[in-house]
């Protein structure tokens, strides 16, 4: 089953001033359960592509369907709701709400989804366990290490039971041990929950763990390798 289907995506920043042609016609399909790395040199358009797939930004040209639904026609507020129910985000940094504990951060999106308390508690505990942070349940982000914060972020991204998880350089700020730890967790959730992951990275060790590697060069897909 196709989770993402992007066709002819172009993105031009600042079309009126100094135009930057960040994506020059990208076609990309992602199947349910794939574990995909988007790689490429700096400025090649990785973040731009992820933002468009994630409904954070709109393409200048082309269409994008998520779970069979065309998201380019949605209004800003509809897009927010769409992201809430369909996409889990893990950013490079500043993922978590600083005034909430690990548990509350994970619960947050489920609260926005109006899930019952029982369901929230169960899912939160399950996910905290999956990312190995049962003992940090009541810690605030500032009391957690960078790696632990990213693991909470992954748990948070999965909490809403999204169609897929998008992660833009999730390990960029982590040391190698935390990096491999986070990837273990992502790979495990990919296996166990058949969750689709799309992440960008510069890190060769992360690339090595991916099942599919899409390489962007200068706003175009250069190679697309499945392993």
């Amino acid at each position, binding site marked *: 089953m196709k989770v993402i289907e992007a066709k002819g995506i172009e993105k031009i920043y600042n079309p009126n001033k100094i135009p930057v042609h960040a994506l020059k016609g990208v076609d990309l399909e992602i199947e349910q359960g794939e574990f995909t790395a988007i790689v490429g040199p700096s400025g090649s358009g990785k*973040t731009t592509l992820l*933002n468009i797939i*994630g409904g*954070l*930004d709109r393409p200048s040209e082309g269409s994008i369907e998520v779970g069979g639904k065309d998201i380019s026609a949605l209004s*800003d*507020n509809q897009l*927010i*709701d769409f*992201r*809430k*129910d369909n996409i889990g*985000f893990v*950013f490079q940094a*500043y*993922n978590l*709400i*600083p*005034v*909430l504990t690990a548990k*509350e951060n994970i*619960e*947050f*999106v489920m*609260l*926005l*989804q109006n899930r019952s308390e029982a369901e929230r508690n169960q899912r939160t505990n399950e996910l905290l366990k999956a990312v190995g942070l049962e003992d940090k349940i009541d810690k605030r982000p500032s009391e957690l290490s960078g790696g632990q914060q990213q693991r909470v972020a992954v748990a*948070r991204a999965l909490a*809403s039971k999204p169609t897929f998880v998008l992660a833009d350089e999730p390990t960029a700020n982590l040391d190698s041990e935390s990096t491999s730890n986070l990837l273990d967790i992502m790979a495990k959730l990919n296996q166990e929950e058949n969750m689709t992951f799309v992440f960008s990275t510069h890190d060769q060790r992360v690339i090595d763990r991916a099942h599919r590697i899409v390489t962007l060069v200068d706003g175009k897909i250069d190679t697309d390798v499945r392993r």
Partner: protein
Amino acid sequence: MILKMSWRNIWRSPLRSLVVMGAITIGTWAIIFLMSFSFGMVKSYVNNAIRMETSHIQIHTPAFKEDREVGNLLPEAESKLATIKSSAEVEAATVRTILNAMLVAPKGTRGVIARGIDENEEIKVTEIDQQIVEGSYFGKGKNQVLMGKSLAEKLGLKIRKKVVLQFQNLDGEITAGAFRIVGLIDSGNKMRDDGSVFVRRGDLNRLIGSEKAGHEIAIFLKDAEQIQAKTAALKTDYSNDLIESYTEISPDIKLYETQIGTSFAVFVGIFMLALIFGIINTMLMAVLERTRELGMLMSVGMNKGRVFGMIVLETLMLGLVAAITGMILGWITIQYFSGSGIDLSSFSAGLKQFGMSTIIYPALDGAYYLQLTISIIITTLLASLYPAYKAIKLRPVEAVRKI
């Protein structure tokens, strides 16, 4: 959860929040205290005026109001008094004979108002006996007079000395009587102490030639809340007479009472204006330094309505917590002073002129706390709109991208 977030967000910049909250707290406290002080002052003035001069309700014949002429008697004053006294709301009532008189003393002559009072009933209405600073209230013997200590001093009079009061009798002839000074009064109101003397009504009535004469009935009610109702009732009972409540007798009291409400509104208005800018500034800073976080919240699915609500809620809590603290502090301050009052004796010379007591008991109606709370809620809500609007105008991509 949003409530929890809003509350915790306030404490992310504790210093900044505390500065704003402190300003609101102090402002609220100051308004409460200043207003309670002003109210206390007005109340003391009003109560003083009621107790010493106007009582709650007075009855005259309409002509007396225009011309304080001996002939403008209140018809059947004594039987009316008996009826009024027997009604349940009335604590005390008395009848008076009131004449314009010349006070002739060895050192000079002065125009005064001679009030003929029933010695036992009068003190239930005006407590005039409490204000005697030298000598005593009426005792044995005829033709006794009480006068202001300040007036006595001006005329070089002392206790036990005799003065002559001259006035017209009911036949229009000038008559006079010699009166002995038995007591000197200091009511706290110098203007009145200088302008009137008190004698027995019986003595005056004998001189003007009518045992039953009376110009004025003064009524003191058990409960001041009843004044309007009782005034209206008396107006129907005695439609030929002029029935006035204290605010009609003494319009300056009424003016005072409305004035104080106006000054409250002005105070509050100025405070709110200062408040609105302080809050906008603080919340704008709070929103701007949280750009990335707000972008993240919108990215993961917090919609604009909720983001807007969160900022509004945060502002509201900031304002309300501070305002309530200020009000509690104000209330405590009022309680602290309401027992013993605030002694202004060092400034009292001026106050006494105007018939105010030198000890002010601050007091503030609950309604004003409510008004202030509502004003602060409205102001805070208004002040939160712009920062909240700024927050939802953020575009999540740009917010997330910013390093």
